[in-house]
């Protein structure tokens, strides 16, 4: 039973992680892509970590997992804000031409 729960957490988490990444790839502009990475990304990895916590079922692990998730929720939006700020500051020069080439 627990195994199934764990498995579900892992599967759903993996699914959201993948979705987030596809979002980052597919969505049309950088702000939209950020929506994907901040939301689905965090959810996906959090679910997987929770699955892990249940699987390993030790206080120490659980505490750690909670810490990771809180940390992600604290940092990821700040990161998004930083990126957003950078890309919005000047919408006209959004296409960073000098840096864009390969």
């Amino acid at each position, binding site marked *: 039973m627990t195994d199934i729960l764990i498995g579900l957490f892992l599967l759903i988490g993996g699914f959201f992680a993948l979705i987030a990444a596809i979002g980052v790839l597919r969505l049309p502009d950088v702000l939209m892509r950020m929506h994907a990475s901040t939301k689905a990304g965090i959810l996906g990895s959090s679910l997987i970590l929770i699955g892990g916590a249940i699987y390993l079922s030790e206080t120490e692990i659980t505490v750690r997992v909670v810490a990771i998730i809180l940390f992600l929720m604290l940092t990821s939006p700040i990161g998004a804000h930083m990126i957003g700020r950078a890309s919005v500051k000047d919408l006209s020069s959004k296409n960073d031409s*000098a*840096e*864009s*080439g*390969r």
Partner: protein
Amino acid sequence: MIPTITAGDTLRFVWEWVPSLGVNVSFYIDGLSLTFALLITGIGALVMLYSARYLAGHVHQARFSFYLTSFMLAMIGLVTSDNLLALFVFWELTTITSYLLIGFNHDATKSRRSALQALLMTGVGGLALLAGIILIGTTAGTFEMSEINAMPGVLTGSVMYLPILLLVLAGAFTKSAQFPLHFWLPNAMAAPTPVSAYLHSATMVKAGVYLLARVHPSFAGTDVWLWTLTIAGAVTMVFASVMALRQTDLKLALAYTTLMALGALTLLLGNESGYTITAAATFLVVHSLYKAALFLVVGILDAQTGTRDARQLFGMARAMPITAMAAGIAALSMAGFPPFLGFIGKELKYAGALAVASEPILVAGAVLISSALMVAIAGIVSFRPFWSKSGTPIPDVKEAPWPMLVGPIILALLGAIFGIFPETLQSIVTPTVAAIVGNAEPAKELRLWAGVNLPLFLSIATFVLGFLLYAYKVQLRDWLIGITTRAPSFDNGWDRLMAGVAAGSKALTRGIQTGVLKHYMYVTFATALVALAFTLFTQTSGIPSVSWPQIALWDWLVFLLVLLGTWLTVVTNSRITAIAGLGVVGIGMAMIFILFSAPDVAITQLLVETLVVVLFAAAALKLPELDKDSFGKRPFDALLALGFGVVTTIILMKVTTGPIDRELTTFFETASWPEAFGQNIVNVILVDFRALDTFGEIAVVLIAAISIFALLRAKPEPQAEEDQP
């Protein structure tokens, strides 16, 4: 001491110096050493007296005396050393002091050039001699010349004889300025005249002759020895005497006659007969006496009149009677007139030449020509400037002060005294000859009148020819100048050689040390690749086996991730993309560490990678964009890189085939908790088992921080700011 030696005995003192290398400071005094030592000290004392006045008031007079004294000591050491390496030490010391003395007038470019030329020429010989000495030591088992000379055939019978001989001769010939290694000596006349008199006429240049005499017992007696010395000596002799005639500078004329004398001595030492060796021993003394005297005379002329040009000096005898007298006596000795010692010397030379084992006529002819020229030169140097009436004497010239006169007078008079009382000289000539050829060929008697014989006729012929040459000296000189200016000059050759060395080394260095970092790196990598690949393909065989099935899907994915990150970093022309690519590689590395059980390393890798990104992002703000780069543009770089990658992979695959010795790790695993009280083995290794590594490592980090701080805080110099974009 002197009576002991003249009685035919020898003295030997030994101090161990570097016994591990077989080097002793061992002094061996026999007739040969004594003769030289007496010449060195005797002439040396007179020259010093002379130069005390000659250089009076010169700012560097003290230095001069110091060099001269040092030279004298070195020279004495040279001629008394029994140990060949000790001899070599003194040999080189004379080279150095000679260098410093030739360059004494160091403001003049010519002096500096001459000094260098002398140093390098004798230096070449010195190095050859060193090699020769080493080989002698190896062949004979000792460096003590007295012991080697006591082992007949130890060298001549060895397979190494020829190389040893050639090396030793190279040393001797350069030092004694034998043709064609002679050209430094006339240039060495840039030195103050006392130096020319002492070093470059009487003593140092005779060190080569001394060496030939010293090794004579164990070297001579072979055809190579005979012919090399004879030919070199004869050619030098003739060439030098002709060149002497060509000179207008009296000092240079004397320099070339010195060359002639050195050639004569060399020629004579080629033989083993009592005549030739006696001739050599006598002529050695003769020449030293008259030549030093004449040099000093020329120095006086130069000092008192301001010129040494033969074409400007006439009838100075009235103003400088004492000098003129000294010059006259010395010149008569030089020209070989009786009753001066020069006459005995010349007679013995002829006798010696005729005693030469083969081709005596040819050799005697050479001696004849050179001796005749010597007569002419003697006239040019000491007759004309003092007695000739064909020009106006330089006005207001005074006699030189007495300390300058003592030397030439005594030296000249000695030539006369020994000529009249040859038995006084005999007492050291005999042991000298004995030292060279042993008692089997005893020294010949020195006599003014040896009876009517072939040498006497040759002497007379010499005078006749000499007078003729003197009479037609101007025509001859012009003719010679005409020839020699067209002929290639060794001195110019030297300049071309020096220029060639400079240009060649510059070209080579420009080709290697290009100043372009890319070249440096290319060569470095290429060298490493060649070294590794060559070794890999010649020293090992087989291809490493790869067991693919063991590799999990995860591993492939991580592999792919790192690959992609690397690819991105290489192909991008955007800095930030490259940094991101590196970040991906870093993350991939961390994942490898995670997958293969290295959490500490993974965490560190991630942290460090992040800091790298932070630093890059900060620095990139003030750095320019990347230029365009693509594979097509740098095919050779790509090839080198590819080769490097392939070789690295092969080596690593071979190294990791088979298990590793886990002795160390096993110890760490078992000792970590019970003995070092830690459960994280990696950390226990870091802070306990290998704490010293970690200590060094944090020192690196600290120093990096200090250095970076210093780099950033150091205020760039003003001109650097101007160029800032």
